[in-house]
């Protein structure tokens, strides 16, 4: 097994706009995966990934009850919904993009969906 994994293999995400800032919420599929994200998915790492967009600062907030970290990306949207010249003025594609990030480590316990039942169609294993 490789010791690098794609973030999207152990987590899902959603992004949106807050003025000229954007946020990406990253939700681990398992408690073990959440612990790992706490170590490797730092604010600095996310800031580095999104630096080409002009992001000036990244803050990370924990939501342990849903195994998630929320990243607030300052100045990510090239002017925000009203002034941005980009196609994606509202940061809708930031979540799918971050899931492509490669992170160190690999463990089968990160891949198993958490104890909460999911519909078969919604489980990561069926993707």
């Amino acid at each position, binding site marked *: 097994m490789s010791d690098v994994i794609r973030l*999207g293999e152990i987590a*899902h*995400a*959603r992004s*949106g*706009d*807050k*003025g000229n*800032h954007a*946020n990406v*919420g990253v*939700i681990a599929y398992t408690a073990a995966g959440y612990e790992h994200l706490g170590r490797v998915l730092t604010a600095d790492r996310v800031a580095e*990934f*999104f*630096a*080409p*967009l002009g992001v000036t600062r990244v*803050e990370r*907030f*924990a*939501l*342990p*009850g*849903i195994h*998630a970290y*929320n990243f*607030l990306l300052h100045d990510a949207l*090239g002017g*925000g*919904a*009203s*002034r941005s*010249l*980009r*196609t*994606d003025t509202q940061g*809708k*594609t*930031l*979540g*799918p*993009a971050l*899931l*492509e990030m490669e992170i160190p480590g690999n463990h089968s316990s990160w891949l198993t969906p*958490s104890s*909460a*039942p*999911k*519909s*078969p*169609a*919604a*489980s*990561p294993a*069926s*993707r």
Partner: protein
Amino acid sequence: MKTIRIGNGAGFWGDSRLAPIEIAREGRLDYLTLEYLAELTMSILAHLKSRDPAAGYVSDFPDVVRDLLPVLQEQPGLRIVTNAGGMHPEACAKRTAEVLAAGGLGSTIVAAVSGDDLLPAIDAHLAAGETFAHFETGGPLGDVRSRIVSANAYLGAEGIVEALGRGARLVVTGRVADASLTVGPALHEFGWPGTDWDRLAVATVAGHLIECGAQSTGGMYSDWTPAISLGDVGYPIAEIAEDGSCVVTKPDGSGGAVTVGTVAEQLVYEIGDPAHYLTPDIDADFSHVRLEQEGTDRVRVAGARGNARPERYKVSMAYRDGYMAAGTLVIAGRDCANTARHCAGTVLERVRRAGLLPERTHVEVLGTGDSLPGIPLVPAGEPWEVVLRIAAHDPSREKVERVLRELVPLVTSGPPGVTGYAGGRPKPHPVLAYWPTTVARELARPKVTARTAEEWSR
């Protein structure tokens, strides 16, 4: 224990026209909420009102209510709470009341909730010491003052609670916080004190989870597959109980999915610090929320907490900021991505030679990852065609216009394989930029006008 079902049938102005009628018909609702106002929708409505004094509200809302007439006849207990009033709640209430009266529901009480519009008195507020400094940068209002198009405080649930208490079956507000459309009915039904922060937090998280429509029921979901049908997607319903427990679900038999995954994604949508989700009603703490699948398409939401509401109202201002436009062409053929970049250079060179280069331009070759410029994504194979998109922004309409004017000639004077120009040239549109700020609560008091539909129609 008393439980109420609040369903949301619109997540923005432009959401599905089927959704309100389907959730009202199938959702066994006590309340239907319809949320229409994004940050800048108010400025668009202000612009419409400036051209027609009777306009300024979500113009197709009366049509939505016309669609809902049979449901309102069949379900006498169903109430509607909406921010469709936009810049002009009274005009919206009147026009909608006429629809109700014509549909045989003339005795229905319709309430308009206004008081959020700060623009008429803004100079008096400035003179009285309000600075309207930028919420994030602290920057002064300065010359933005002369360009303001709209200035609205985000009101809370207070006006909605008053309207429901006066018997309103349809409550039409202006700018209120999205979650307050849900908090209002909960406060009215359960009589919780407005300072019961933990229960208010439950209603607030419920409102947050349903306010964007199908985004909590399978829309936008990372793990979406075609097995989650979206053509008949059910819009979300929050079941809130008197003890402050809450379940998110959707109408029986509808498409979509309500899972821990879909709800968790909506919990983190457009939030900053989850420990301080600020609304006019509360400083809510979502950081320890837990989600549990208690049945098919039923997710229990627990662990929300709250602290006292912020002292000041958040205000959303919009101001004129020049003109913007974007034009697209399709470039097809071998090596089309490089060809497209040359095409963009050609257009901008011609504009520059005319002395009309806008202050800001942006080129995207869509199909190559340019929607997120510079982010290393999955390497794609060489595409057969790409979309070239050039966008421009400048105080001068003429400069923005010229970029669009020089784009289409690429069809004849550019490289081979340029197409997709049918449908006419886009027009520059005025930019309404966003200025977030705050105001003292006493300067934006909710004003409730409640009358029967018949009385509004006179």
